[in-house]
């Protein structure tokens, strides 16, 4: 009963520029961790092979160290790995693959599908029909030759490709080359393993996108899985099981804060998040000073707790209440200034006024704390 692991879009070497150095290096590291986890899962589930459907590397000129680490990470599973060049790591005349070969980083059990054709795994009786991208920009359906390729009888016939299934996915997919939706049928494939869509997605009974094993962007399209594919007997429909591989979960929330309780809600939801979260908050609305303090507090705690928290509160206004103002004990002209800033939040320099208001409020609070500790 042949069984294999289907994964794709490892994007090794990607730089996360919206995060600071600490976070981005942790996130980069996590990607290697994903490979190791895949190896582990392959061993656990007695897989015959691991198929990687493109974009193993995020760029052609990743460092040698990067290359080695990637292949090292596969060492957990000694069975065959088949790696397909995608659009980020296309098999050009000179590519990350040629370099990997040159520095002898590719272990013997890793097959690089640098040319269109069939890669036979005799021990496992699996024939992998591969459609690697060999140009920087490809516009044709590279899986077309599958229809004409023959494989040894009685072997499993699996297609491995990278691109966007025509007519099914939205236009914002990465690669430009299309793949016919009925390829698995026209090429008589037992299973067609696809890459390029970073989330888990089924196209039909025999065609799936595994998505990236480790999320790398804020998109809720179910990343962080690998697919365990089992074919019980020749001609049978494959059994596909999704295995979770993600270390970090990326969340992007847009929150509107209007009343005090909104912050409470936010707090509750934040608490519910696991520690291995990458969170991006977009806040808007208006809060009181007290609320501001609470929010700052909440966020600062979250920053310490989770992998990374980034937030944008440019559209969040400060609206101190009477109590707030009283609490600040802003006497005399300072009180006047407070009022002025409040009104200016709705004017031309709203952003600056809001910031000034926040600073003033915090200074006053600090002063008050000093006086009444």
């Amino acid at each position, binding site marked *: 009963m042949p069984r294999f692991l289907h994964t794709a879009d490892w994007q090794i070497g990607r730089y996360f520029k919206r995060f600071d150095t600490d976070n981005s290096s942790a996130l980069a590291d996590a990607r290697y961790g994903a490979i190791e986890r895949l190896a582990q899962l392959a061993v656990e589930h007695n897989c015959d092979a691991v198929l990687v459907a493109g974009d193993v590397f995020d760029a052609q000129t990743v460092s040698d160290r990067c290359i080695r680490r990637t292949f090292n990470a596969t060492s957990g599973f000694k069975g065959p790995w088949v790696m397909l060049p995608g659009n980020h790591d296309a098999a050009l005349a000179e590519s990350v693959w040629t370099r990997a070969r040159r520095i002898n980083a590719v272990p013997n059990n890793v097959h690089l599908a640098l040319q269109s054709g069939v890669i036979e795994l005799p021990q496992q009786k699996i024939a992998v029909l591969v459609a690697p991208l060999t140009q920087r920009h490809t516009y044709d359906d590279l899986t077309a030759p599958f229809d004409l390729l023959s494989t040894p009888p009685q072997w499993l016939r699996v297609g491995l490709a990278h691109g966007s299934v025509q007519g099914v996915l939205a236009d914002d997919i990465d690669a430009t080359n299309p793949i016919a939706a009925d390829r698995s049928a026209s090429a008589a494939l037992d299973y067609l393993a696809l890459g390029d869509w970073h989330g888990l997605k089924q196209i039909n009974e025999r065609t799936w996108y595994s998505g990236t094993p480790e999320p790398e962007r804020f998109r809720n399209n179910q990343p962080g899985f690998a697919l365990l594919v089992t074919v019980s007997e020749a001609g049978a429909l494959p059994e596909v099981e999704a295995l979770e591989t993600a270390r970090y979960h990326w969340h992007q929330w847009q929150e509107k804060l209007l009343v005090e309780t909104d912050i409470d809600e936010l707090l509750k939801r934040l608490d519910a998040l696991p520690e291995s979260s990458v969170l991006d908050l977009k806040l808007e609305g208006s809060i009181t000073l007290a609320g501001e303090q609470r929010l700052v507090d909440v966020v600062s705690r979250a920053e310490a707790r989770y992998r990374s928290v980034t937030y944008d509160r440019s559209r969040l206004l400060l609206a101190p209440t009477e109590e707030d103002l009283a609490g600040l004990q802003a006497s*005399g*002209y300072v009180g*006047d*200034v407070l009022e002025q*800033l409040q009104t200016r939040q709705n004017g031309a320099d709203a952003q600056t006024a809001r910031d000034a208001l926040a600073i003033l409020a915090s200074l006053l609070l600090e002063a008050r704390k000093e006086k009444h500790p």
Partner: protein
Amino acid sequence: MKLESVRVEQFKQFKKPFLLDGLSNGINVISGPNEAGKSTLVRAIRAAFFERHRSKSAEDLRPWGDSSAAPTIELVFHHNGQNWQLNKSFLQRKRCDLSIQGTTYSGAEAEEKLAQLLGYQFPKKGASKEEHWGIPGLLWVEQGSGQNIEQAVVHAGDHLQSALNSLVSEVVSEGGDGLIHTVRQQLGDLLTAGGAPRAEYKQLLADELPGQQALDALEGRVDQYQNQVDRLAKVAREFHKTDREQPWVKVRQALAEAEECYRHIESLQGQQQTLNQALTSIQQRAALLQRNKQQVQADGQQLQQREQERSTAQQALSDVQASTAALHAALAQCQSQYRDALEAERQAGLLETRQRLELSSVRVKAQLQQLSERKSRAVELQQTLGECRKLTARHQISTVAVDQLRTTQRQLDDTRLRSQAIATRIEWQLEAGQQVELGQGTLPHQGEQLLLASTRLRIAGVGEFTITPGGDDLARCQRQLEQLQLALGEQLLALGITDLAAAEQALVAQERAQADVHRLLELSQSLVPGGLASLDSDYQALSAELERNCAEKEALAPATTLAKGAPALAQAQDLRSDSENRLAAIEKRSSEHEKALLAASHRYQNADHEWRTLRTRLNSVQRQQEVTQLNSDWTAIEQEQARQQERLAQMLAQIAAARPEFVQQDIQRLGASADQLEQAQRGRELEVKELRARLEIWGAEDLEGQRGRCQADLEQNRRRCQQLQRRAEALQLLLQLLTEKRQALTQRLQAPLQRHLNHYVTVLFPDAQLEVNSQLLPGRFTRNGETGQLAELSFGAREQMGLISRLAYADLLKEAGKPTLIILDDSLVHSDSGRLDSMKRILFDAAQRHQILLFTCHPDNWQDTGSETINLEALKARTVF
């Protein structure tokens, strides 16, 4: 605030402890003479508050000569119902203890409390300076600085504002200043005083451009890498394709074929060459024959020509010969003419010569005659001359001697006259029969005599008289006379004459003779310049000439006579030369004619000879044969030539048909193409190698990784920069609003201050006004309708105004509930008594509200305070513990 007591020890002149107490509310006049320690006490109070107890700049507080002193000050005062006690010592023992109503503070904490109370600050390091003195700096007036109020107000500014904030009727802003200070500080972390980014912010901004540039550079390199990868793919593809197809093989085949074809053409061309050569030799032979034919023709022509020449020469010869005779006749004629002319000339010449000779002889004879005449005359003259000379010799007499003689004679005469004058003259006329002897002689009957010397006169019968003529002179004269006579006689002798007259005569005669001689000499000279000898020689020469002439004439004889009508010499000469010329011409023509004749006959002979020879040759048999042969050869060769040319034409056509130039081009083209193809392939191979090598190196540089990192850094930079910018803007806005408000508040303090000030000014100047500006500084001063600045007033007036302003501040501070201790050290010394009175009233009024310590050395001025003056000397005399 009320100061109770001040105790100092080891403080400047106060080595032993000194206590100032008994201070009351209101005005306290503390008097003492100079050097009593008034200013020292003021210094003590100031030091107690202003100087940090740990200060290293407190040396001046030490008493002189005591290096181990620990100046100590103790102050006790009340404020707001609380008892404050300050104990401070410096240098050797540094201490600061403060007790506020029982609660104790020490060190820096205590000092802060004091600063807060009175409204001043401590320096960060070093001694306290006027900028630190705050409100006390305003209220405690040092000696001689009362008129400088501006600086004190400026330094006290912040403190004044914070102290006075409570007076504003609106809601107080507690801690507003601290807030402003904090905001300013935080802003200062981000921006410089000029508003430019500093520190981290500045660095971030500075890093933007290089960061962007680095990113751009990396992008460039990544592009480059990608381009090279694409190029590698392309070139590799081409290489493989070309490797499979091997297009050069076909080309080389075609090349070989073309070359084969060309070789064939070449062989044809070889054949053509041989044909050409054969044709050439035929043509040469033909040419030769042609030449021969031409030669034959030429010969014929030549014969004709020669015949022609011969006849022409003949004609010429006869022409020449014709004219010979005439020419000879002419020649003979000319010759005879010439001879005649020549003879005539000769004759004429002879005649002329004769005539000439005759004339010459005549002339010479005349000359000779002349010469002999002259000679005889000359001889005559010579004789005369000789005689004259003899005469001269006879009358030789020296002019000099004659002169001398003359002189002597004159002298003699003079002396005689003189003696006579001197001499006694004696005249007598004797009577008859009387006899007189004078001197030696008897005197005649009558007469006179001069007596030159003493003379005896004897008169017989009478006696002897000695008459001595008077004077020495006479004697001398007499002597002279004798001398002169002697000399005269000698001279006459010498000259050989009898007397002067003779001498004169002789002289005259001599002169005349000399003149004669001279005259004669001249004559003879003119007559015979060169002397007789030359005259002789001339004569001889002329004689010779005459002889010659005669001889010549002889030679010419016989005398020929000219035919009548014979021309003269000149004419004859002309004739001769004409005929000579004609003759010469004719002779020339004749000789030319001879030459021509010779030449013509010669030519004729030549032409004749030539013609004959040629004729003989051409008519020979051999020649005829040759001509025939020649003709036949000619025809043969013409035929052959034609045949050969046809063959050649055929060959050329064949070659042309093969299009050799195209074949040649093909060969070139194909050869070049094959080379190029092979070269290109090699080039591709090389390029592939190069590209691979390069990409290997570049690939290892992790370009995209670098770019990613660079991008990430740049983004982070920008984010942070933006953050800081926003923060700076916010702080700026905040600061601006706060300071605006505060300033507005301060301005509201202006009014009460003005009120207090007016209260005092009117006491001093009833109609005057001193305005205080928004900075709370007194400035404009108006009096009697005139306006000026405070600084323009006199020293004394400024001092008064300064004090008044301080009192106004003090009043304002008092209203705000702040401590207002006023210390005046020797103030108002420049005020006149009138002003001083007004000032005193003001002070007394102020003293109702504030404690004033007034130190003075003129206690008399301050007797009317209503309180007892404190005498320092008396205090010093006390013992204190």
